[in-house]
């Protein structure tokens, strides 16, 4: 019986906030797929009130850290990452169900590609569609503009307009990307040691993108590896009020732009970008209010602002 002092191959950090029964499914799939791998699993609970943290009682291999208040996604992940001893660290959402063979496959890819700092799998939604943000470019003034104007949807094959979700690339083929989805993000320990932990100034969004940005700046490559598949029940950790996530999403965009991109652009461009964000925020909040007022569900994919995690 291992005494817990050897270094594991993989450390998994799951941040839970009211994920309900999905957390059990996540842990079941994870522990099943982790057979044959030396792994440690840490669950950091952000003051859930739905009883989901008690799920770990059925999984004696899982360590639980309970926060008394919701410290945010980045801070909670960092609590777990600081305690991790694995050569590879996986950030996993409780609403992300690892598919058969996915863990072994993606770990194998990282082992055989030492230039890979971060890797993300093919993430699919329950209806079988690709969860588009699982492979994407960084949000620059251009890519975000094309996304906001809907041009990336109109011209998916265009290397210019389709750049944000890389829709011109075959999603069945491994390729280099700028960023992957934080719902399943595998990172090499050396990258964390070099670029640091998640930036806690991002409360709920863009901390994964920020991390990927810093990793790339440090010379690592980020890969999309579709041979590994993950099912994502997006929105399992949604907040009860939609206004807060909408606000946080836009705030994250603002922080990301200011932190990494503003230096590259002239003041006028930055001003336009920030104005665009303000307009987008106002429009999104108005949309939330309209939806609440009419109580109808629109039959299109959810806007990221409406979900608690991606």
């Amino acid at each position, binding site marked *: 019986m*291992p005494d817990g002092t050897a*270094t594991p191959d993989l450390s998994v950090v799951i941040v839970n906030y009211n994920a309900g029964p999905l957390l059990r499914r996540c842990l079941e799939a994870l522990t099943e797929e982790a057979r044959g791998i030396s792994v440690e699993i840490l669950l950091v609970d952000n003051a859930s009130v739905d009883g989901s943290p008690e799920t770990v009682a059925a999984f004696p291999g899982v360590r639980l850290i309970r926060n008394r208040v919701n410290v945010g996604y980045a*801070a909670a992940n960092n609590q777990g990452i600081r305690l991790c001893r694995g050569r590879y660290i996986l950030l996993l959402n409780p609403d992300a169900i690892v598919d058969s063979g996915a863990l072994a496959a993606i770990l194998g890819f990282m082992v055989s590609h030492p230039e890979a700092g971060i890797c993300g799998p093919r993430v699919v939604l329950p209806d079988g569609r690709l969860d588009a943000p699982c492979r994407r470019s960084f949000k620059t003034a251009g890519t975000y503009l094309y996304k906001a104007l809907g041009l990336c949807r109109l011209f998916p094959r265009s290397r210019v307009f389709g750049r944000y979700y890389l829709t011109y690339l075959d999603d069945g083929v491994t390729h280099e990307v700028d960023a992957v989805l934080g719902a399943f993000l595998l990172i090499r320990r050396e990258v964390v040691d070099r670029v640091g932990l998640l930036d806690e100034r991002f409360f709920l969004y863009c901390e994964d993108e920020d991390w990927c940005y810093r990793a790339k700046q440090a010379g690592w490559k980020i890969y999309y590896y579709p041979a590994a598949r993950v099912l994502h029940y997006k929105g399992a950790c949604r907040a009860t009020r939609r206004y807060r996530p909408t606000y946080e999403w836009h705030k994250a965009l603002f922080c990301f732009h200011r932190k990494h991109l503003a230096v590259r652009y002239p003041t006028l461009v930055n001003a336009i970008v920030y104005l665009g964000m303000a307009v987008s925020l106002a429009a999104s909040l108005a949309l939330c209010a309209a939806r609440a007022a009419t109580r109808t569900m629109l039959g299109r994919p959810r806007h990221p602002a409406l979900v608690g995690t991606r």
Partner: protein
Amino acid sequence: MVGEAWAGRRVLVTGATGFVGAWLVKALVEAGATVTCLLRDQPRISNFTLLGLEGQVNILRGCVEEGGLLERALNEYECDTCYHLAAQAVVVAANRAPLATFESNIKGTWILLEACRRSPLMRRVVLASSDKAYGEQVNLPYTEDSPLCATYPYDASKACGDILARCYSRAYGLPVVVARCANIYGGGDLNFSRLVPGTVMAALLGQPPIIRSDGTPVRDYLYVADAVRGYLALGERAGEAGVTGEAFNFGGESPVSVLDLVERILQTAGRTDLRPDVQSKTKIAGEIDCQYLSSARARGILGWAPLVGLDEGLALTFAWYREQYPRLAPGWYVSSAGPRG
């Protein structure tokens, strides 16, 4: 440092699964003594198991209130030295259930003292008392001649045990000495309701440490290795004139407030970004404001002194919990395939 004094000695230790007891047992084993431990419970994780002491000592299953068991043990294992550390040592739990506390801490002590008295082989008995036995004092620091003014159940139980030891020494000539230690801290304390382990774990987990008081009470802290050295010194000389029948204070000699201690731990952990959650706005009624010990007698007579300063001790303590964390909490899921590339 310990020398030849312990080679071949046969020692009975109660409280061996506890924080201090396990370190003491380890030191005795390393010094060449044959150690017999009285184990009441065997928790899944204890300092005893973490130090890998099973297999290095004789183990008796039973509790200290069983006089027959103790007498048999002292006789069969031919013990010439006895360390009595077993007690209900968690102050909050002790105060919640006073009778159980009195049973284990007071009755357990007199049963053990009587068993030692009746053993013809016993040469040295060391009893763990506590600075809590002094209660609230006007004059600081506490010296061994300060009256034992304990008022709360745990404190009272330790004071009673202390007095019983002196009784057996004076009335029956039992070679017993008493150790009154300050708050002992260090790696191996798995009682996370205590201030140091609780704060260290909070820092490790990235959570704000909780301070139940208003942070102002001043206490004396003694690193566990220094406490063990004090116990060994007493165990070597418990039968000597000037030592036998006496009590000795062992303090860290650097009293600090609760808040100050917590800040030092956060500094050691590199987590000064975590702000302590001070839960009380005012002083808690009945809580002693300030207590610390003078160890002049131990220095003068035993040649003992605390060697590990507070900051150094806290650094060692944090490092221990950092390293042992995977063993303290479940979290291992491994197949026989072993690690990959």
